């Protein structure tokens, strides 16, 4: 499982590669991207029907294509979060009262699955999916530093930017460390590992503990390094951003499109099928 996690992180390490491709989104000023894709997230949170979600998802996917992002990587990155969301809402179909669809036997009892529950679970998962797709589009098409610059220019809280920058920098240092610890453990593991064995979990928990202590110690050293170079609590970045008519028109265009999706049910008469979708 650890290796799987590291693989995903390793992949995110390589995402900066896509940020230097010559595509649509890569040309847009990061501030505009941040704001307009943030707008898409807000709209996605407010949407009421599944059809609208699908339209929005289609819009985001076509943006990914226009930005020459490989769709495989685009969807794979979302899959992790979407799967996580799906797990969270797993109890919903059993707990929400409503029209019973079918039942699952659990020992002497039967658990009933309600239509409303399934609908809500799917709804939530798709909502998360759209939000993650929008943010994925942002991070895949933008270099991380540019994103930090954008946040600074948009007057995000300083502390937030500092934490983001340092987290991003050290997450790789710590995954390397975790990987080495994992290797060291495996090198001394002779018995076949079983998930149910208590010892396996004990080792894992002590590894996590060690990693925390190391992180803490490293944090102290990094802080010293910052102090030695005149850190006073302010964290400054040099800004080299400029944004022109092209950027603005992209931002306004995307925001309008998202709003259009939001207001579409009011403008277009809804057919009976789309009604419950």
């Amino acid at each position, binding site marked *: 499982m650890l290796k799987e996690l590291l693989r995903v992180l390793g992949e995110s*390490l390589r995402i*900066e590669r896509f940020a230097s491709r010559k595509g649509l989104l890569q040309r847009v000023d990061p501030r505009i991207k941040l704001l307009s894709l943030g707008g898409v997230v807000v709209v996605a949170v407010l949407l009421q029907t599944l059809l609208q979600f699908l339209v929005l998802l289609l819009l985001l996917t076509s943006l990914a294509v226009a930005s020459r992002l490989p769709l495989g990587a685009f969807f794979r990155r979302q899959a992790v979060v979407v799967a996580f969301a799906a797990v969270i809402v797993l109890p919903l179909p059993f707990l929400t009262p409503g029209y019973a669809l079918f039942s699952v036997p659990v020992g002497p009892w039967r658990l009933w699955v309600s239509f409303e529950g399934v609908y809500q679970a799917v709804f939530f998962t798709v909502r998360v999916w759209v939000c993650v797709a929008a943010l994925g589009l942002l991070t895949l098409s933008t270099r*991380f*530093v540019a994103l*930090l610059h954008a946040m600074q220019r948009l007057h995000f809280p300083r502390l937030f930017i500092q934490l983001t*920058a*340092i987290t*991003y*920098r*050290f997450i*790789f*240092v710590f995954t390397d460390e975790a990987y080495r610890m994992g290797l060291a453990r495996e090198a001394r593991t002779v018995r076949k590992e079983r998930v149910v064995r208590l010892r396996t979990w004990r080792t894992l928990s002590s590894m996590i503990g060690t990693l925390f202590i190391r992180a803490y110690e*490293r944090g102290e*050293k*990094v802080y*010293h*390094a*910052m*102090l*030695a*170079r*005149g*850190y*006073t609590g*302010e964290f*400054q*970045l*040099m800004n080299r951003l400029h944004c022109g008519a092209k950027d603005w028109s992209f931002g306004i265009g995307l925001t309008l499109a998202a709003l259009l999706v939001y207001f579409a049910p009011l403008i277009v008469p809804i057919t009976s099928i789309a009604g419950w979708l």
Partner: protein
Amino acid sequence: MTHCAIDMQDVQYQYPDGSVALDGINLQVGRRERAAILGANGAGKSTLLAVMCGVLQPSRGTIKILETKLTHKTTRRLRASVGLVFQEPDNQLFMPTLWEDVAFGPLNMGLSGKEVESRVEEALEVVGLVELRDRPPHHLSVGEKKRAAIATVLAMHPKILVLDEPTSHLDPKSRADFIAFLAELHAHGDLTLITATHDVESVPLFADRAYVLDKGRIVGAGTVPEVFASPDLLAEAHLAPPILTQLFQEVPFIRERFKNEPLPLTIHDAATALRRLQFGSAGCTRQRCSLPRIRDW
């Protein structure tokens, strides 16, 4: 000493848990001097450097940097004139790209954008990493990271460069390159170099004076040949002279011959000494005579 870069008087440092890491440290390093602080693992080298640079507060004693006393008021100003390079470059490089990292110090100094840019360019030029400016630090090799760490400090135009274990984790080529780079830096700038290390082989190459640190105390000081000529002192501090020096001490007839002069510390010294042994003294006259004969052929 009139022109002191660093002057520490009776400095003590206690860890938060109360254990004493440094005790009664007296240390003076002159301007443009190259000093090495020799100590085994856990002797307190890194702590000494951190205290010296005003990153950690000593619990007793006074520290003067460039003749200015280190106090709460002066700490910030003085930090700009002392560049501390950490042993582990991953601790020093904390920004998302190399460029941002090198710009961190100058930006903290409140310099103008133009000045910052030119300083970053210059520092990257000096360490030869201009092409990697937009790389995230985790994409650099260890040698590159080490040089990058120096660039982050050089961009602040320090008067004193303080290096913690600069040669650790480097392969032989990178190590040689790095030492040559330090020599060049010292030759062309108005820099004081202070290096903490237990890499005794490299010390003669980047230091003139040496201080021996053991369990938080300075147990010996002197020029590098002087310090390496006292094996007992070194052994007590869990150190040893360079391997060549040991070789010269080990072979009886060589040791006899070098009774009145310093033993060689580097390959270059040793080669010169051996050549002198071969041609310079009575045992080698035969060799000397044979040379013209060969030329006669």
